[in-house]
């Protein structure tokens, strides 16, 4: 039997490296050990999500256009049903870093193609990701590189490549932005088939040599006739690059950092951890998997329980997986796809190229009510298989139970969640107000699931 500490640590790992896990799964993972579980997350053997089943039942999700909703539904389906949780979590990570939005791209399937690239390469080479993004139709249109011409450079992609995708503010000059942009002239899109009258057709990346600036450039201290790929190689040589990606990983997986634009004026909360991760990135030629392994096995990760405010996606997907509310194709999928947006995180449609402001900025008076209601509605629904199993766990030990014991067990199965004495007192009082606890039966299920719902409304539950 796993100890309470082991359960808490494994639950922490699965919340961060995935979207949570059931208590049965957590106990099984505790049995096999922490490091073995990390390796399984890094090298998943489960089958990929059955896309064909999704497209057969929800054909609109395969080629969505102007509206992001069908694409959001498709990705929610992936996250809620995947047996390769870290793969999907890394996909979400890269979407945070390389935020691309359908509000402008207006061809949601192209952003889904970008997401698919993150899914297949997210634990691979950061170098390959940068090169893939430079030729990615959604990114090219999002950051105007189709308007970046030999005689009229557009700096949008060049600037964001340096500012938000690799180095961070303070590690390049305006001249570097211009030279970088010149190197990507001619990296553009072929004319696509118009959307009327048969729906969306894809763009294709093309390199137009006649529109590329072949003259000499000086970029980050190096001079040469650089093309876009040369620029990426020079970027990767910068110490700032590895630190920037390491800090992103720390912010996403370990503990909340200040928002990205503040990174050049605020030190990391744990500079040693960021240094260590940056070093591993460089030593492994920017392969992502080794740094993930080191991070998940580090003390600073293991000590970071409840140091992060759960993102809306983590709240929604964690709840759906935990309660068993979405296990495959379902007519409610398209409505569920909008839920992260209602909670403040419109996936495939971030507010800007900077992505979302995370941490405490996830919470405001509107989003808090939405997230509490989303979780409470489900954890109080005893018709859901995951909730039934949670109730069983709460009631499976002994013939009687005090109100405090019931609350403790509910807190345990919901996280475990550590709450303040005041919160605990309120929870216990509520249970006590219902009178003596009879184990088993509908009344027990109802009182237990009501307690789940109340826990979902606590301050402490918003952290994970």
């Amino acid at each position, binding site marked *: 039997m796993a100890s309470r500490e082991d359960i808490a640590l494994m639950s922490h790992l699965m919340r961060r490296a995935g979207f949570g896990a059931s208590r049965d799964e957590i106990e099984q993972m505790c049995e096999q050990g922490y490091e073995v579980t990390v390796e399984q997350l890094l090298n998943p053997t489960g089958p990929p999500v059955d896309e*064909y*089943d999704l*497209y*057969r*039942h*929800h*054909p*609109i999700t*395969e*080629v969505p256009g102007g*509206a992001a*909703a*069908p694409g959001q539904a498709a990705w929610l389906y992936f996250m809620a049903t995947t047996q390769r949780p870290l793969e999907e979590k890394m996909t979400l990570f890269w979407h945070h870093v390389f935020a691309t939005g359908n509000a402008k791209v207006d061809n949601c399937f192209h952003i889904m193609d970008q997401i698919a690239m993150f899914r297949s390469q997210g634990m691979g080479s950061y170098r390959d990701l940068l090169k893939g993004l430079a030729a990615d139709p959604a990114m090219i249109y999002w950051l105007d590189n189709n308007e970046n011409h030999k005689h009229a450079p557009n700096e949008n992609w060049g600037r964001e490549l340096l500012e938000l995708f690799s180095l961070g503010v303070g590690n390049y000059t305006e001249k570097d932005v211009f030279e970088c942009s010149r190197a990507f002239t001619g990296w553009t899109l072929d*004319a*696509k*088939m*118009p959307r*009327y*009258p*048969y*729906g969306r*057709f894809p763009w294709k990346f093309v390199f137009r040599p006649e529109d590329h600036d072949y003259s000499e450039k000086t970029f980050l201290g190096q001079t040469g006739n650089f093309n876009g790929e040369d620029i990426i190689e020079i970027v990767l040589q910068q110490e700032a690059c590895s630190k920037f990606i390491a800090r992103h990983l720390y912010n996403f997986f370990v503990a909340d950092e200040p928002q990205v634009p503040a990174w050049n004026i605020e030190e990391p909360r744990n500079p040693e951890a960021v240094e260590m991760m940056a070093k591993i990135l460089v030593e492994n030629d920017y392969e992502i998997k080794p740094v993930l392994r080191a991070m998940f096995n580090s003390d600073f990760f293991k000590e970071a329980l409840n140091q992060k405010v759960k993102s809306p996606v983590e709240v929604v997907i964690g709840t759906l997986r935990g309660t068993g509310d979405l296990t495959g194709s379902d*007519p*409610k*999928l*398209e*409505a569920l796809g909008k839920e992260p947006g209602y909670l403040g995180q419109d996936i495939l449609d971030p507010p800007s190229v900077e992505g979302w402001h995370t941490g405490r900025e996830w919470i405001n008076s509107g989003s808090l009510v939405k997230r509490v209601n989303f979780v409470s509605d489900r954890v109080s629904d005893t018709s859901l298989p995951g909730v039934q199993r949670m109730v069983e766990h709460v009631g499976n030990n002994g013939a009687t139970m005090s109100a405090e014991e019931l609350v403790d067990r509910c807190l345990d199965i919901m996280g475990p969640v550590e709450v303040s004495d005041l919160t605990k007192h309120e929870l216990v009082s509520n249970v006590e107000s219902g009178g003596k606890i009879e184990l088993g039966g509908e009344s027990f299920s109802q009182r237990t699931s009501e307690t789940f719902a109340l826990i979902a409304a606590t301050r402490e539950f918003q952290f994970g």
Partner: protein
Amino acid sequence: MLTTTVAGRTWNFKKAVGRNAAAGNGFTQPYDVALGPEGVIYVLSRGAEGAGGVVAPNKRIGKVTMDDQFLGDFGHSEFTWPVALAVDSEGNLFCSDEHLNIIASYNEDGERIGEWGEVGSDEGQLNGPNGIAFDADDNLYVVDSGNGRVQKFTKDGSFLATFGSAGSDEGQFDKPWGITVDSSGDLFVADWGNDRVQKFSAGGTHLMTFGSAAGGELNHPSSVAVDSEGDVYVADWGNKRIQIYEPDGNVITSLHGDAVEFSAWAAEVINANPDAQKAYRRVQDRTQIGLLDRPVGIAIDADDNLIITDSTRGRLQVYTKEKDYMDPQFNL
């Protein structure tokens, strides 16, 4: 356009019908097509749950003709996941809904005249009804996809027989989708998850298998149809094409789609949109616009016109079969 030639027959692209539209003279993810009396073609729009909710109005049954008449549509907001159509000998239309687990019926005027179906896995119960097809006696075969079997009912829903089970052996099914009955009364079932089509006698005896995943011959086939000469057409959904087989199971050829020219309804849209006309002038190669993208349903009319629902593109593609075709000499 002459698309394909083989010894003794060829298939000529005839036309496209429809356009991608959430209402009016177009279709939204057309999943099946069935032939009604007097040249009526029924087209089932699967639609999307999206903004309209689970029973969104874009889920509907359109009435059109081969010469591009739009005769209206019906069934709005009456379905959750409609899948397939079939017409009985009296001209009534039947439609399956794999989420509601029902078979609904309509008269020629589009008025709902019946509905039956009970969810479950016992004989006569349904779990995700998909393809439906009538035999010559007006009994309805229903692909009971979630239960991995085919069931036979009277058209009023009285259970008659069942065969098959979930699995991958001969006579078993993995999430089967479409079905057809040929002129001899034999059945063909698109065994979607097993990448094959299986042929059965009317009583459910396995007769033969068409295709497999090997070499990509079939990839999740969605439906099947048989013409007057016994050639078998399979909507090769995963490969986005129609595979054509001789009656003995040999592949003859494939149709990938040829609707490069706009359908009449599509042309209406483009002719009213000067910017779209200009945008088309930028496109160097229009081949892509003609290709099938997730073909789902197939119907064959009395003239051996092959009518295919081109679901992602919201249209029908129609081919005619030219019989007794002689190919000219190769080096002409």
